[in-house]
C-alpha cells in the first residue's frame, strides 16, 4: 500500500474533511493540530482527487511517503546498496559451488586424516569445486587405499559426506617366479594337504607349530643321469603351491551371572504427561517419582513439526519390585552358546569350519566361569619365499 502523509493549512478544515467523506476519499491518522491545520495519511491512488479538493483554498504539503512502492523506489535509487546486495548474493551463490566441509564415516583401521589426504590427492578437498568428477575420485581412492572395499560420496549443499567400508588386510602375494615354501601360519593338527607344486613335508594328524614348513619348495633331483658328480645331492627349487587344512584349537573364557534380576510390578502406578516445545521438555514423571524402583511407559499423542515443533505424550510410572532369581542350567547353556557364536564371529575367519566345541562351567562366588574349547578346520598354509643357496652364495 502506498500512502502520502500530508499537512493541510487553511480555514474550515472540517469542510475539507466532509468533502473527503462525500467523495469517498479515505483518510487515516487525522491529527488536528489547531483550528487551521491538520495532518493525515492519504492513499496514493486517492491523492489526485484529494489535491483537487484541496485546490487553492488550503495549503497542502507532502511530509512523507509510506508503503512498499516508495520503499522500493528509495532502495532502487541507492546504487551502492544494490551493488552491495548483488555482491552479497553472488558470494552466497559462489559458496554453494565449493566444498565447505568434508565428513568421513565408517572408517575403522584407517584414520580420518589418511582418508582426507587421499581425497585431497584425488581432487576432493575443502575449497574444491563441487563439480568434481566423483567417479574419478572414487577410482583414485580405490587405487590409493588397498583396504578400501567401498566408498560413497554425497553432497548436501557444501557438505561432502564420505562413507567408507574397509575390507581385510590385503595379502602380499609372493612373486610366481620366486621359489617359496608353504609354512604354517597357525599351530594345529594336520588334516588334509593338497600340494599343487612342491613336496608335502608333514603327515596327517601331526602337530605343527607356527613357521613349520608344510609344503616344501626344495625338491631333491633323483635322476642323476646327466650329472657330472652322481654322488652329490642336487636340489631343484620351485614355487610351492597348495592348501593345507589343519584342526586348530581355540580356547576362550567368558563369565556369566549366577543370579538374574527379575522385575515384578506391584500394581501401583502414577499417570503423567510429557510436553516438548522445541528443545524444552517438561515431564511430570521427572518431577515426582514416589517409587524407589519404577518402569516408565509412554505413548505419544501429538507430534507436530509445523507451525512449531511440539510433542505431547501421556505416560505412566509403575512401581517395580526387584528379586534375585537363580538362573537355570538351560539358560546358562544358551547364553554360553551365544557367547561362543559371538567369539567365532569376531575372531575366526568366515571360511573356518567348526568341527567341535566343548563347554566347561566353573561356578564361583557370584559368577560362572565358562571355558569354551573350539575345534576348527581351517587353511593354515602361507607362502614364504626363500633364496636358493646357490643364488645366495653367488658373489
Amino acid at each position: 500500500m502506498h500512502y502520502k502523509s500530508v499537512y493541510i493549512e487553511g480555514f474550515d478544515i472540517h469542510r475539507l474533511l466532509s468533502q473527503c467523506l462525500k467523495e469517498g476519499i479515505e483518510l487515516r491518522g487525522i491529527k488536528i493540530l489547531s483550528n487551521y491545520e491538520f495532518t493525515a495519511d492519504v492513499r496514493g491512488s486517492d491523492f489526485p482527487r484529494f489535491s483537487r479538493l484541496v485546490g487553492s483554498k488550503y495549503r497542502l504539503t507532502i511530509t512523507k511517503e509510506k508503503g512498499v512502492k516508495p520503499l522500493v523506489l528509495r532502495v532502487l535509487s541507492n546504487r551502492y546498496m544494490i551493488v552491495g546486495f548483488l555482491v552479497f548474493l553472488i558470494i552466497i551463490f559462489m559458496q554453494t559451488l565449493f566444498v565447505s566441509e568434508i565428513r568421513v564415516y565408517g572408517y575403522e583401521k584407517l584414520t580420518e586424516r589418511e582418508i582426507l589426504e587421499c581425497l585431497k590427492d584425488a581432487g576432493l578437498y575443502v575449497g574444491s569445486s563441487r563439480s568434481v568428477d566423483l567417479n574419478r575420485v572414487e577410482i583414485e581412492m580405490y587405487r590409493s587405499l588397498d583396504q578400501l572395499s567401498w566408498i560413497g560420496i554425497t553432497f548436501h549443499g557444501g557438505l561432502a559426506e564420505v562413507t567408507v567400508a574397509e575390507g581385510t588386510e590385503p595379502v602380499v602375494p609372493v612373486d610366481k617366479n620366486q621359489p617359496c615354501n608353504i609354512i604354517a601360519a597357525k599351530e594345529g593338527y594336520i588334516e588334509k594337504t593338497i600340494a599343487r607344486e612342491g613336496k608335502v613335508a608333514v603327515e596327517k594328524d601331526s602337530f605343527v607349530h607356527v613357521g613349520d614348513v608344510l609344503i616344501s619348495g626344495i625338491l631333491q633331483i633323483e635322476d642323476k643321469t646327466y650329472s657330472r658328480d652322481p654322488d652329490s645331492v642336487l636340489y631343484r627349487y620351485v614355487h610351492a603351491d597348495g592348501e593345507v587344512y589343519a584342526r586348530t584349537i581355540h580356547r576362550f573364557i567368558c563369565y556369566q551371572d549366577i543370579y538374574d534380576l527379575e522385575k515384578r510390578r506391584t500394581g501401583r502406578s502414577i499417570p503423567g504427561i510429557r510436553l516438548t516445545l522445541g528443545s524444552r521438555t517438561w515431564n511430570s514423571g521427572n518431577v515426582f517419582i514416589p517409587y524407589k524402583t519404577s518402569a516408565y511407559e509412554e505413548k505419544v499423542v501429538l507430534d507436530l513439526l509445523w507451525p512449531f515443533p511440539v510433542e505431547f505424550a501421556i505416560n505412566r510410572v509403575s512401581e517395580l519390585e526387584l528379586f534375585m532369581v537363580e538362573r537355570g542350567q538351560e539358560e546358562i547353556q544358551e547364553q554360553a552358546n551365544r557367547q561362543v557364536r559371538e567369539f567365532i564371529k569376531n575372531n575366526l575367519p568366515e571360511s573356518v569350519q567348526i568341527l567341535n566345541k566343548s563347554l566347561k562351567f566353573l561356578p564361583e562366588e557370584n559368577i560362572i566361569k565358562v571355558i569354551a574349547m573350539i575345534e576348527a578346520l581351517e587353511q593354515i598354509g602361507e607362502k614364504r619365499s626363500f633364496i636358493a643357496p646357490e643364488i645366495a652364495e653367488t658373489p
Partner: protein
Amino acid sequence: MFVMDEFIYDFSVNLPRVLVGGRTGVLDHVKKLLIVTETNIVAGCGSGYISLSGVNLTIRHLSDERIIVSGEIRTIELYGNEG
C-alpha cells in the same frame, strides 16, 4: 427488540449511530463534519448530529460514511434536526 426496530437499526442510513468502547469510538452514517478539534468532534448524519467530547481526540480513519475516533471520550450527545 422487535423486528421493526431491528430493521430501523440495520437499514436506516440517515440516523446517527455511535459505538464507543474504551478509547475508540465508531461513528456511522456520517455525512459531514461540523466541528473537528482535539476536544470535540461533531458529525452530521442526515437526520441528526453526534457530538463526541473528550481529550486528545483524533480521527484514526475516515471513509465510506464512517469515522473511527481515538482518544479519551467523555461525553456523547445526540441532537435532532429540531434541536
